[in-house]
C-alpha cells in the first residue's frame, strides 16, 4: 500500500466514524433539536404547566376569535388533533385561518398560553393570479384560504 493510499483510507474511515458519531448524537438529542411539536405529539407528551415549549400546525378554519383587550384565541390543528391557544400580543402579517403557525408558551388547564406566535411559510412560491387560478380548479394545496388576503394587507 502506497502512503497516499494509506492516508486516503485513514481519512475515509475517520469521516465514516465521525459521521456515525454525529448521527448518534443528533438522534439522542432529537427532542432538543425539533423546533416545535405537533398537537398529536403534544397530546402524547402531556407536559407539565411550567414546561415551556412550542407547538406548530395550521390555524383551524373559523376558530380565530378576539374576545377583546388585545387577546386572540384560536385553535392549532394537524388535522388529527387540535389544541386551543390563547395569545395576547401582535400577530405576524401572515397569520390567518388555514396558515401554518408556531406558538411558544405553556400548557395550562388544557389551553396553550402563548407568549409568542410566529407564522410559518411553506415552500410554495407563485404570483397571486396563479394562486387564484389553482383555487378555482380546486387543486389548492398551499397555505391560507384567501390568497388575496396577504396581498391586500401589505398594500
Amino acid at each position: 500500500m502506497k502512503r497516499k493510499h494509506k492516508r486516503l483510507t485513514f481519512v475515509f474511515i475517520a469521516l465514516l466514524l465521525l459521521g456515525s458519531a454525529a448521527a448518534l448524537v443528533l438522534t439522542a438529542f432529537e427532542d432538543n433539536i425539533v423546533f416545535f411539536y405537533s398537537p398529536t405529539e403534544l397530546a402524547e407528551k402531556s407536559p407539565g404547566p411550567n414546561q415551556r415549549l412550542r407547538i406548530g400546525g395550521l390555524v383551524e378554519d373559523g376558530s380565530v376569535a378576539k374576545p377583546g383587550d388585545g387577546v386572540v384565541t384560536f385553535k392549532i390543528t394537524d388535522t388529527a388533533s387540535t389544541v386551543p391557544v390563547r395569545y395576547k400580543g401582535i400577530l405576524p402579517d401572515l397569520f390567518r385561518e388555514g396558515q401554518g403557525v408556531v406558538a411558544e408558551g405553556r400548557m395550562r388547564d388544557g389551553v396553550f398560553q402563548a407568549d409568542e406566535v410566529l407564522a410559518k411559510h411553506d415552500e410554495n412560491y407563485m404570483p397571486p393570479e396563479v394562486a387564484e387560478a389553482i383555487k378555482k380548479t380546486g387543486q389548492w394545496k398551499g397555505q391560507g384560504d384567501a390568497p388575496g388576503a396577504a396581498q391586500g394587507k401589505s398594500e
Partner: protein
Amino acid sequence: MIHRFANPTRFLRLADRIQPWAAGLTVVLGGAGLYFALFSSPADYQQGETVRIMYIHVPSAWMALFCYTALAAACATALIWKHPLADLAARATAPIGACFTLLALATGSLWGKPMWGTWWVWDARLTSVLILFFLYLGYMALNGAFDDPERGQKASAILALVGFINVPIIKFSVDWWNTLHQPASVIKMGGPAIHPSMLTPLLLMAFAFKAYFVWVLLMRMRGEINAMKIRAVRLRQVHAAEATSADAGAATGEAR
C-alpha cells in the same frame, strides 16, 4: 492528471484563459438576474414584494454549501495527495464561502422579520448554518495561527474535513426535524414548488453567483501564488545575507 496543474505557471496560464469568461458571465447573468428579480417578476401571493429577498438569499445559501464542499475537497486533496495548489485553493475559498454564508444569514434575517415575525430563531436550519459560518472563521483563524505555515495548513485542513459533517446536516435539517424554516422548493420530489416566472431570476442569480465564485477564486489564487513567490525570494535573500555574514565572521575569526 491531477498533478498536471501542480505547476503554478501552467495553472496561471489556464487561469488567464478562464478568468475573463467568468467575469463576463458574472456581469451578464447577474445583470439579467437582477433585472428579472427586481422588475420583471411578479410579487408572491403571500409574501408580496418581500419575495425578492429570496433571489439573493437562496443563491447565497447554495453557495455557502457549495464553497464549503469545495473547501473540504481541496483540504482532502492537500492532505492525501499533497497537491501543492490544493492548500492555496482551500485558503482562497474560505473567505468567499464565509461571505456568502454571512449574506445568506443577513438576508434570511431581513426576510424572517416581516414573514415569520422574528429576526432569528434557534431552529435546526438556522443554527446549523450559523455553525457553518463559525467553521469558516475557525478554518481561517487556525490556518494563520502557526509560525510554520505548513502546520497551520494541516491543522486547518483537518478541521475543515471534520466540519464537512455539517453540510448534509444543513441540507436535510428541514426534512429530519420540525423547523420554522421551510423545506426545499427547487430540488424536491415532483418538481419545483416555485412558479417558472420566479424560478427564472432565481436560477440566473444562482449561476451568476457560481461564475462570480470562479472569478474571485482565480483572482485570490493568483494573489496566493504571488505571495508564495515573494516569500521564497525573501527567504533566499535572508539566507544569502546570513551566509555572507557567516563567511565574514569566520574570516575575521581566523585573522585574529
